[in-house]
């Protein structure tokens, strides 16, 4: 068992170092942007830092839950196997079976949500910060509007690929929760883009309101998914 646990711990350590270095670089870039008076640089650096933080947090939660699951797996099956073929389990056997069912159920559930949580947090981060980036770009240089849009789409693609490849199971009730939060997000995004490009062009307060609403929606969605 030790042989399988150690490499995972080392892998996690390297991942944490990479995340920390990434966030430090983004902080340096943010300060540089402020010093040079380049809003695009500050927006991109802060977006990246938030995304790195979100992925770091969800990875940490997942790693913790997976290690719990590994401990559960060691004794799972032994008790159940002992009861195999018993048509009339004793009260003690019934209790052990119930315990095993409960442990297996929670182990299967606990390791399942992280790609979807990362997607929810990432989607909230990139789209809310994009709303602010669009305002910055519109104020300083409209010809650069494609830059935050492309960056947003690249990150959206990355999160979707992660979710599709690593989202190997979904918690009970996930479909209903997902649909609810995606519909709210889509509504906010469409309203935000439509009004910001027509009636409320250049209104910072509006960009902040929409960005805040998107953030709240994503955080609540991710929180509920993590606690489910």
């Amino acid at each position, binding site marked *: 068992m030790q042989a399988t646990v150690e490499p995972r711990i080392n892998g996690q350590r390297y991942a944490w170092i990479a995340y920390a270095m990434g966030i430090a670089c983004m902080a340096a870039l943010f300060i540089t942007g402020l010093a040079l008076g380049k809003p695009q640089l500050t927006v991109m650096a802060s977006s990246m830092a938030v995304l790195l933080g979100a992925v770091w947090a969800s990875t940490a939660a997942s790693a913790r839950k997976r290690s719990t699951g590994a401990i559960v797996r060691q004794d*799972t099956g032994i008790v159940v196997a002992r009861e195999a073929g018993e048509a009339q389990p004793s*009260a003690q056997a019934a*209790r052990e079976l119930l315990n*095993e069912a409960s442990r297996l159920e929670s182990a299967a559930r606990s390791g399942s949500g992280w790609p979807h949580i990362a997607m929810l947090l990432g989607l909230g981060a990139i789209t809310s910060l994009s709303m602010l980036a669009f305002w910055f770009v519109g104020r300083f240089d409209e010809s650069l509007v494609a830059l935050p849009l492309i960056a947003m789409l690249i990150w959206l693609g990355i999160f979707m690929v992660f979710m599709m*490849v690593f989202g190997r199971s979904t*918690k009970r009730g996930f479909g209903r929760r997902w649909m609810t939060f995606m519909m709210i997000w889509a509504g906010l995004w469409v309203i935000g883009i439509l009004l910001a490009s027509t009636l409320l062009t250049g209104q910072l307060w509006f960009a902040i309101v929409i960005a805040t609403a998107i953030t709240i929606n994503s955080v609540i969605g991710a929180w509920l998914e993590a606690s489910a």
Partner: protein
Amino acid sequence: MSAPEPHEEHPRLKLSDQLAHPVRFSMVAAIAGTDESEFGVIRDHLQVSDSVLSRQASQLEEAGIVKIRKGFVGKRPRTWFSLTPKGRDVWEQHLAALREIANGEATADRL
């Protein structure tokens, strides 16, 4: 004249035969907490071989307890398991019967 009360059956009679097998019991327990779980996830949780899991899953599918969905992620074939509504009822009933058995002896011990 009222009909006599039917004699209450022993909880062990409410246990599902399909879930008496340890792999099938563990498999349904693992799937029960999820909407849908991939083959590899369940195999890792149960620590059984692909062939054992595949055989037991087919039996649960024939019994109408588990739904098996096949698809692709990129070019890789994937298989997902979920409990059918009937399967969830069977599982709940099985757990309820186990609880009755577990609580029954505890009550008897106290008396």
